[in-house]
């Protein structure tokens, strides 16, 4: 663990925008600073026509190293349309 670079909300966000063409990313650090627990809202067109399991797998593979280094990772994955609908 010693050589694991610190995971921050910003580093996660940049990677998701870069790799999943995420249009909207909200990352909340729930760890109180230790970098161990994150909750995320991810909106990406790549989630289109994918089951929740497939969406999570997509995110997990984009963030493989980061997720391995943290304890808790709670992604919520929406397509742009779903996200619009939620904004009501």
């Amino acid at each position: 663990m010693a050589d694991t670079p610190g995971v921050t909300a910003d580093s996660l966000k940049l990677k998701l925008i870069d790799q999943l063409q995420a249009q909207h990313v909200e990352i909340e650090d729930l760890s109180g600073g230790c970098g161990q627990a994150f909750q995320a809202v991810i909106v990406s067109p790549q989630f289109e026509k994918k089951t929740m399991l497939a969406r999570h797998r997509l995110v997990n593979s984009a963030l493989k190293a980061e997720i391995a280094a943290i304890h808790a990772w709670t992604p919520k994955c929406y397509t742009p349309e779903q996200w619009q609908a939620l904004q009501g």
Partner: protein
Amino acid sequence: MFFRTLASSALRPLCQQPRAFQPTSSAFKLMLPTILHARNLSSETRTAIDKAIASAPVVLFMKGTPETPQCGFSRASIQVLGLQGVDPKKFVAFNVLEDSELRQGIKEYSDWPTIPQLYLDNEFIGGCDILMSMHQSGDLAKILEEKGVLVAAE
């Protein structure tokens, strides 16, 4: 707190069962450092996990035991399964904290980075988030019903 009682009393007998995993894994304890570095699932571990997953229709890999979960996500998963009325006779929980080989191995086996992990009839369903949202959407009740793993209504 009805669901908690239900979960712990209904699911209690099942957490005895992880022993099935132990022979294989303890035989491998000596090789553990190598295996962890290689990050390659040994065929022995794979076989042990195959067996674990096939040991009941509903299998949960979790941190802690159903009566004493060691992580909020594992606790939530157990509570949902209890709420849904999963038949204890059709459920087995494996405590990954008792076995570091299993803890690492199951992540690679499922290609899923976190614990808990739920299997239904040998099929990976997902982790806590997926379980929660399937619970809320009604999909979980549907699939559990289809698989016939719920306690029969009286």
